[in-house]
């Protein structure tokens, strides 16, 4: 609301100065846990129970131990496989369904859309027990497929891509159709390049969502070598005997890659969130 009234002046108005001050204070609170985690992870076992803010002796020993003497790299790999696999599926299938629901005419189109949309209302908690029973029967427990299948085609992604395909002009598709391109070609070679911005946002969300997923991977992974990163970190204390210096290093290693991804794709992520809000 202030922006509407703000004049383009070089002088710093008192109200603006207060805004900066409050924002600075807020971001200090938001950022402090990250800073504390980083600094704690660089302290040795003795110093971590001391109260000095800045480490007296910087050490990378915690990181060395987590990376070379624990299952951490394996968990990282598992998370990467699951997150990349599901993201690829999300991008392909959500677009394909979104395209089909907007560009093709067939009986039952509305029914299919409502059917998919209605699944948005089902909480994950209601699905995990039948999923677990199903996974036990078909041998999906402790497999990549078992960990990843719930995230393959999110209804929300279908909804988002449908909204996007709806905005595309018809003529582009008609022209290509005249050239004898089949429906899959139209989707893949004409449609997909045109919705690239939406794909970027959807892809990043799918990746982050599956990378951070906790409830289902906790249920479905049975052995230490099939844990994903969040599950591995959660169960870390048992194995390390609450060695806070190691836990802080492991947490930092789990969080930093995702923060780097975030800072690279910041614009797309935030536009994606904004899009959700305005479309909702």
């Amino acid at each position, binding site marked *: *609301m202030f922006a509407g009234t703000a004049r383009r002046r070089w002088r710093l108005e008192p109200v603006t100065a207060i805004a900066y001050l409050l*924002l600075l204070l807020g971001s200090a609170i938001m950022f402090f846990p990250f800073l504390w985690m980083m600094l704690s992870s660089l302290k040795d076992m003795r110093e971590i129970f001391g109260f000095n803010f800045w480490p007296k002796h910087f050490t990378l020993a915690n990181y060395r131990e987590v990376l070379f003497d624990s299952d951490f790299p394996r968990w990282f790999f598992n998370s990467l496989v699951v997150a990349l696999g599901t993201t690829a599926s999300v991008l392909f299938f959500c677009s394909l369904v979104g395209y089909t629901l907007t560009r093709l005419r067939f009986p039952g189109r509305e029914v299919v859309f409502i059917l998919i949309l209605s699944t948005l209302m089902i909480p994950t908690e209601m699905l995990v027990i039948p999923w677990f029973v199903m996974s036990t029967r078909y041998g999906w427990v402790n497999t990549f497929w078992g960990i990843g299948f719930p995230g393959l085609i999110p209804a929300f992604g279908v909804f988002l891509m449908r909204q996007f395909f709806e905005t595309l002009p018809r003529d582009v598709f008609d022209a290509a159709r005249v050239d004898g391109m089949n429906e899959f070609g139209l989707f893949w070679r004409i449609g997909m390049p045109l919705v690239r911005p939406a794909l970027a946002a959807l892809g990043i969300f799918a990746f982050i969502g599956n990378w951070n997923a906790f409830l289902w991977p906790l249920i479905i992974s049975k052995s230490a070598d099939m844990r994903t*990163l969040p599950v591995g970190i959660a169960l870390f204390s048992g194995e390390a005997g609450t060695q806070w210096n190691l836990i802080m290093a492991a947490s930092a290693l789990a969080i930093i890659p995702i923060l780097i991804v975030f800072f690279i794709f910041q614009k797309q992520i935030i536009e994606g969130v904004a899009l959700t809000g305005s479309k909702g």
Partner: protein
Amino acid sequence: MQSQIEQQGKRAAPRFRLTLATREILWAYGFLLLPLAFFLFLRIWPAVQSLRLSLFTWHLDPAQREFVGLDYYRAMLQDARLQRALQNTLLYTLIIVPSQLVLGMVIALLLQSIRRFRSLFRAIYFAPYITPAAAIAWVWGWMYSMNFGVINNLLIDWSIFWEKLGLPWLAIDPQPFLTDPGQALYAVAVVVVWQNLGFQVVIFLAGLQGIPRMFYEAARIDGANRWNLFRHITLPLMNSVMVFSVVISTIASLQLFDQVVNLNFTDQGGPLNSTLTIALYMYQEAFARFRLGYAAAVTVLLFALIMVVTLLQLRFFSRRVEY
């Protein structure tokens, strides 16, 4: 256009004997085959299955499950632990949703009012949202710790500072936070708000940017002050964005699990069930005690709760548009 379709139809007709429309239908269902199978068998069928499981005793072999009707639902009425979980979940929601709404709105308005460093601030506020709750909860648990936590250390420094100045009534004693049944839920709620606030900020920022500037300019010419602008332009025009924010954060709060589990991993839901949520209770019943039938009934309760609360909110808020 017409001739193009005819031309294409003629070309295709001898080979497939299919009209263009029929081919389009076949393509459509070909494309939808796998996704529809996914939604039917891995989403809708399991949801129905949950309803069914809640009516039978649990056994891995379906033939040996016994029908118990609504017994589990009746048992829920007597279950003190479940009722505690329900109370806690509602309390979490009552704390988290308004805090996120108000703080999200205030921060978005502040960000809107500045010109420099806006994207940097926005990134900092959003960063916690994308980090895994399991990892971040360890950091908060460590910060909350009674004897070694940085928060209590700051409280001690704060107290010493004021006592030296001769104002001991400003001193605050170290707090037990997560280990105290009276404080633990609030301590968890703070972490949840901290983690999800950035999402709300971005949603509100997008909403604010959608308000045409001329509205404000016109109102200012009429002599409106900042409060008038906020009350009569920003607030009403942000109504739909606020409804979205409230509905989304309510649904997430009612399903609270990750932070609760990880902030007190050795005593999940504790101390003394003070942080227990419905989602965590369901998880413990199903996967620690293997009472899957009962746990399924709990998930049906959760589903019903989410439905009812969401519908009530949509009904209540959609009426309150004032200009």
